[in-house]
């Protein structure tokens, strides 16, 4: 283990605390969009898919990478679109258009 990994561990620790802080503030009304939105964020693994496959000289690594890119894209595109669809439905009282909700 190198020093670099220790820094990554520090990043991990801070992100978990930050995640808990941010997400405990989300009201129950938005828990479903929160879940699908967070789910879309977990598609960040697409970055790993692009890198891991790109650096490889072995063809199998490329196949694996390409498959990972497809799966992660489903997660990212589907996740964000469906979250947007849900959030756009939440409207305040006495508003007719969607401007107020945005």
């Amino acid at each position, binding site marked *: 283990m190198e020093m670099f990994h220790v820094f990554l561990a520090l990043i991990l620790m801070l992100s978990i605390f930050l995640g808990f802080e941010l997400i405990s503030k989300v009201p129950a009304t938005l828990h479903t969009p929160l*879940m699908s939105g967070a789910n879309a964020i977990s598609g960040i693994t697409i970055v790993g898919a692009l890198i891991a496959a790109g650096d490889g000289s072995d063809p199998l690594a490329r196949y694996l990478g390409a498959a990972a890119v497809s799966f992660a894209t489903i997660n990212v595109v589907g996740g964000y679109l469906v979250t947007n669809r849900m*959030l756009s439905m939440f409207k305040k009282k006495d508003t007719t258009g969607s401007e107020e909700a945005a």
Partner: protein
Amino acid sequence: MTLELINLFYVASAALFIFGLKQLSSPATAVRGNMLSSFAMLIAIVATLTGKNILPWEWIIISIAIGAIIGGLAAQKVAMTSMPEMVALFNGSGGIASLLVAWAALYNVDNSIFTNVTVVLSILIGGVTFTGSIIAWGKLSEVMPSGAWVFGVQRIVNGAILIGIIAVAVIFCMDPATDSQYLYALIALALIFGVMVVAPVGGADMPVVISLLNSYSGLAACAAGFAINNNILIVAGSMVGAAGIILTNIMCKAMNRSLANVLFSGFGAVKQATKVEGEVKPITADDAYLILEAAQSVTFVPGYGMAVAQAQHVVRELGELLEKNGAEVSYAIHPVAGRMPGHMNVLLAEANVPYDQLVEMEDINPRIEGIDVAVVIGANDVVNPAARNDENSPIYGMPIINVDHARTVFVLKRSMASGFSGVDNPLFFGDNTRMLFGDAKDSIATVVAEFKG
């Protein structure tokens, strides 16, 4: 771009993810928050693509196009009632992607013990997330039987798989190779384990499993981040991990059960509730109208049954008429109503119920005595007073919406049968309870017609 510059863009991306999540704390800013978050994702992807040695372009474009088409179509087509299944499937694809990333990483990285351990973790969590999500999807969409799948030696079998995973993982970490048979064994065991841990959980408890798998998909990305030394994967992955854990915890608390209890025991298997007997007092839609017409405050308590009956639109219409009539209208939503946390809120928002009328259990319970009429639609366990009074009830201790303390309770019900968990409900026999039998949508529509007529 140099590696340093790419990493700077990752920092910007991480900041935008954080801002995005922060704006999710209010329905007024949530749409913008989601957009910020997707913009953060775009930055991370584009920055990565500018790095050296990325896959041949045509491969990237084809892979992304396939994923985008599938994901985009699914997101547009899915009905709001099927949202839990959809999230489960998206979860699963994130999980398998992390598994594949870790597998591909074996071809590139220095084989230090640290990297191997993270590769193994990523494969394990990703694999469990993938098959676990597929099973959860199957149970929720009723492609598979939704009941708990339990057999006698299950714990022994699961224990054996777990020991197998640990053994194979240790051997693999000692001597990693891209064509190691232990690698294939590890992947296979992770996939099997995902099936085995979700199969014993019944359909009613699936929301907890979905939250948990959501957390896993983040952790899998996080582990993959360690495997390839990438900070944005670690930051984004761990925040998703935290989100999943918080939601899991909320669901468990709302059912007064521990996570272990949800995962390892079939519901209601242990206790038999005290039999409740009594006489129910039915009411006609006409009489219900007269009472509602005189009410000053009305609260609707919806459950998943309302969505099944597709009654949310007529309910909203009735809510508007009651408001015009001078009554104060609210919708009280139990944390585990619906099939995932916050599911009922989405279904009501879809029916154009304004979000400021959606109230949580903790807000409505202290003032429920002042409510003239509580209308229970398609909910059962979450309003069952046995959870408060009957120590023998399987749901004893679960926090409920105390509708029995309202002045009058209407329970809309198709017929006399117990709810999802098979629990008798003393609410139906309460002095202030009136049963409005029939299809919820038809019953409400009749009341609405009376108001208009």
